[in-house]
């Protein structure tokens, strides 16, 4: 039985696990964006926050993923369900690129442009939403792109704690020494990662300020 045949036969399950995978990655990226962008803005505007915020995100990044799942297991509510646990872990990993690129993007805005805006009487909020964020948007997006691509790979490990996703195939395949099963998980994951990379990269170039 060749791989193609196998994929055809199991297409329903592959589709289902791919959707599960997308859900894990999508929700965790969304959370990382909602938390990471404000943290990036704070550290760009108030230098005292820069070291603690980026430092913490950096440290989280260095924790091996299985160990992180282990650490989070005893946390109430979170530890009660595998998908919550996986989403939290993926969110934590995705934070660093989002925070770092938001910080870099805002810091990279031409100081004379910011000064002109302040001198014209823009409020801090107007300056942020009309000048700083629009000019930083492509850098921030490239951080999100990195976060998504990394999450797609990391999310396969979530199957180890029973959170589902394409990792199911991979772990099953490893246990049964079945390459076709492994490929059934790895190929869709690679496709997901590549399309996210391509799609977000395209958006990034579209939104590049001149």
């Amino acid at each position, binding site marked *: 039985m060749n791989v193609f045949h196998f994929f055809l036969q199991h297409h329903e399950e592959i589709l289902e696990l791919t959707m599960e995978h997308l859900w894990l990655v999508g929700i965790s990226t969304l959370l990382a964006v909602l938390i990471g962008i404000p943290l990036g803005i704070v550290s760009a505007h108030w230098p005292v926050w820069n070291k603690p915020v980026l430092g913490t995100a950096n440290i989280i990044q260095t924790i091996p993923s299985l160990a992180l799942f282990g650490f989070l297991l005893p946390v109430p509510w979170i530890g009660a369900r595998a998908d919550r646990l996986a989403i939290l872990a993926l969110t934590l990993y995705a934070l660093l690129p989002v925070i770092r690129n938001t910080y870099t993007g805002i810091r990279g805005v*031409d100081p*004379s*442009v910011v*000064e*002109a*805006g*302040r*001198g*014209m*009487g*823009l*409020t801090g909020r*107007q300056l942020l939403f*009309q*000048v700083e964020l*629009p*000019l930083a948007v492509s850098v921030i997006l490239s951080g999100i792109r990195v976060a998504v691509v990394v999450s797609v790979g990391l999310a396969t490990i979530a199957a180890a704690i029973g959170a589902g996703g394409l990792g199911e195939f991979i772990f099953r395949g490893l246990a049964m020494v079945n390459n076709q099963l492994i490929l059934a998980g790895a190929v869709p994951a690679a496709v997901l990662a590549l399309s996210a990379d391509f799609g977000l990269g395209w958006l990034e170039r579209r939104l590049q*300020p*001149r």
Partner: protein
Amino acid sequence: MQTISTNGPVIEFRDVLYMLPNGQMLLQSLNLQVQRGETLVLLGRSGSGKTTTLKLINRLLNPSGGEVRVNGAPTAESDVIRLRRSIGYVIQDVGLFPHFTVERNIGLVPRIEGWSSDRIHSRVEELLQMVGLDREIASRYPHQLSGGQRQRVGVARALAADPSILLMDEPFGALDALTRDQLQREFLSLQQRLNKTVVFVTHDLREALRLGSRIALMEAGRLVTVLPPQDFLRSTDSLAAAYVQAFGEGLNSVATRGSE
């Protein structure tokens, strides 16, 4: 237009000093008055404190001592956003918003002040004409303009909400002599019509003599002297004299170059 007070100076520095957090003194005992409708030129070499002085007026910087008054009221007590919107500011590096078209750059303050889009649109056209730019430029982005066009847009943007005070930090710097000359001429005719209170920064004596109703000479964070252009040329102050002399030598050396 607001008419808060009276016949007093529009801008006044009272014993102002400005110090960096590390204690370095950038400006000391600065006393200066700018009258309604005049063009006061801040002249001085690079690093003498001209930009710092300008930024103290719209509170991009706050004095470490003394006070700055605008229309009679200490700036420290005024609403900083209102203050800045009532003062047009042309910054040294132009600082156009690269992600906005020329039209949006110029119309930004009117827009956040809640003008209707029709009114903004006609105001932008009026301003473009005023600074000598073609109206088809309105839809371009700053990177599609020449340096001189960018500086004109910078001036138009500062004039957008019709402020009575205008701060201009080397607005015609980095331009060729002919374009500069043309912009200076346009500035003079514009100023005749609009009658703003202008503080104009330059390090070019010729520009100062041509545009200023008075020239304030700065050196190393101090105000050396304030004189009308004619008196400046005859000043016995050593620094002013040095400026005039260097200016004259520049002309002379050209005249005598061939004969040596």
